[in-house]
């Protein structure tokens, strides 16, 4: 048997190795996509329509479609999510009700995204008759990220020290004034970070849009919210697995993956930057 100090050394070295191999995995994935993708990326790739059965041209409509979906889902999920979080953490006095909502929110968060796709298809596409459309897709994605928005907002609100609320109330401010003037502004950077992270989530989700909005190929940009749209993740999926000529469209797939990864990277950097910026503004 080794002495306890040598045991410790061995164990710690293994853990260190594991941890750095995580970095390795990340570098591998990113490196692979960036290395291959950067060779494809140019102005035309970003601004042109696909050509020749997706083996040439660009991914412009997919980018636009993803932007529409992000905006649409955020317009739906952000106000609702923030308001529910405010209710849960600031107003709700009935603990049972809060508990119920929290369980529901947690469960909603754990539901697989494909189930949201099914649900969106049944409710928005068929029952509401929106058809495969940006509206149906945005609503589905919106529902998907509501739990995320609620949770991050709630955590941000919870991180605001109780003493601020007391301080404000003691000065004769009403509950809403306290939330509006003190609690929300303090929590805002964290809420913002949460929202940005959910933008990342929305722009990468494929399963929920498979049957609610995504189109394989559209010759023109969507004209209204009732039109179908192309979307980046779906585009990557189809050209990687079921394009007309998978080998020929591989560069397009690399390029699309590169754009997707860039969105994720930018969003992570942005979120980190916002966090740090506001931390510097308000030390402590």
């Amino acid at each position, binding site marked *: 048997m080794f002495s*306890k*100090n040598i*045991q*410790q050394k061995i*164990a*710690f070295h*293994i*853990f260190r190795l*594991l*941890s*750095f191999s*995580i970095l390795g*995995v*990340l570098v591998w*994935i*990113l490196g*692979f996509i960036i290395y291959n993708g950067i060779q494809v990326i140019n102005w035309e790739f970003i601004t042109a329509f696909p050509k020749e059965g997706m083996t040439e041209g660009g991914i412009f409509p997919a980018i636009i479609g993803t932007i529409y979906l992000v905006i649409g889902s955020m317009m739906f999920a952000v106000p609702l*999510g923030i*308001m*529910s979080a405010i*209710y849960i953490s600031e107003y709700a006095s009935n603990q049972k009700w809060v508990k*119920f*909502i929290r369980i*529901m929110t947690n*469960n909603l*968060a754990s539901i*697989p*995204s*494909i*189930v*949201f796709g*099914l*649900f969106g*298809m*049944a409710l928005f596409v*068929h*029952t509401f008759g929106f058809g495969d459309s940006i509206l149906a897709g945005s609503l589905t994605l919106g*529902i998907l990220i509501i739990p995320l928005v*609620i949770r991050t907002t709630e955590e941000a609100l919870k991180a605001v020290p109780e003493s601020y609320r007391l301080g404000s109330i003691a000065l004769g401010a*009403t*509950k*809403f004034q306290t939330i509006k003037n003190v609690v929300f502004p303090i929590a805002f950077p964290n809420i913002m970070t949460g929202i940005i992270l959910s933008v*990342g989530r929305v722009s*990468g*989700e*494929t*399963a929920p849009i*498979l*049957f609610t909005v995504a189109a394989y190929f559209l010759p023109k940009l969507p004209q209204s919210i009732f039109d179908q749209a192309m979307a980046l*993740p*779906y585009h*990557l*999926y189809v050209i*990687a697995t079921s394009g007309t000529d998978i080998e020929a469209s*591989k560069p397009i797939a690399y390029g699309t*993956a590169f754009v*997707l990864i860039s969105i*994720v*990277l930018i969003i*992570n950097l942005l979120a980190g930057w916002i966090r740090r910026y506001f931390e510097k503004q308000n030390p402590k």
Partner: protein
Amino acid sequence: MKILERLLEGMFKMSSAITSIVILLIIIFLFKEGFGLFRSPVVEKGYGLYINSKNPVTDLNPTQIKQIFDGEIENWNEIGGKDESIYLLRFDEIFSIYSDEELGENYQFLPQKLNNIISENSNIIAFFPKKFMPEISSPTKEIANKNIGIPDFIYGKEWLPTTTPSPLFGIIPLVLGTLLVSFLAILIALPFGLGVAIYLSEIANNKVRGMIRPAIELLAGIPSVVYGFFGLVIIVPIVQKMGNISAGETAFTGSLILAIMALPTIISISEDALRNTPLALRESSYALGATQWQTIYKVVIPFASSGISAAIILGIGRAIGETMAVLMVTGNGAVIPHSIFESVRTIPATIAAELGEAPMGGTHYQALFLLGCVLFLFTLVLSIISEIISNKQTSKSA
């Protein structure tokens, strides 16, 4: 002023109810569509299976029908009939027996010709649209077209949603595929994730932590379709070469990708749990002469065990529900897997792959919704379990 406050509070309350309403709606829609399956007949709507009335067989279950039409069952005695070989008559074969003139311009003679065939062949089984069988007369007998039963779904060993005359919706291969891929993924991810969590929470200095944490966040942020793409282009060929198999799209490949995807969840939740171990506990262990490592595995890990279990369960939940990456790298063979180097198909991948082709409202469509229900229940149970476990953890720390 007062009224405004009330109004706002009401608004907030309303929106907080939204999530609950959504869950309710999800349940309603999934189950409504899904359970429609059990109200659908085994044989496709509008079609019927017909046999000679002298044949003692009265009903067949979906598997038997499928086996008959696949030629796996060739004699009636295998399914409780007389010792006669089975004569299969599909709808299109009638046109090779009779010429178009014989059948009439609008196929008005078709029902009669069918009657003739069935009465002439006592060993026949015919699959025809009901409209050509206007009356069930003496020589012809329709096999009772029961609704698809719950056991057919739960115990069915085959998933063949598009075969005629009766598709098979057995979820066992899908469930096994899902569980195999998920558990294998967790098996790979767990030692890895736990090690990293321990390193981050107990050993690493702030600089290293500041490097690895963002990496993990980034890993969590990469869209699953990108993982799928990466798996397809990189991991699949590697597995193919290593395993020396014809196709690299296997359960193992899927597990590898899922393991990477589940890592961030496992790491961050178990790290939180480890970190929550009170300083006093650690210090008292140090004070007794334990090394840091002894303290970690004798004090910190046991204390954080329920948090770590919650992490594992959430990781499984994530893996079970993951769609795109799995869809792209597991090969999607809907058969009961016998080894990890075989192609498998998971529940979410099945939904994603097939829903596009399933006609709305049909049995296939309903079956896919039912799969959605199963998935929903799986994750619901897992999330409730992890909730219970993590509640235990918080009450311990309090």
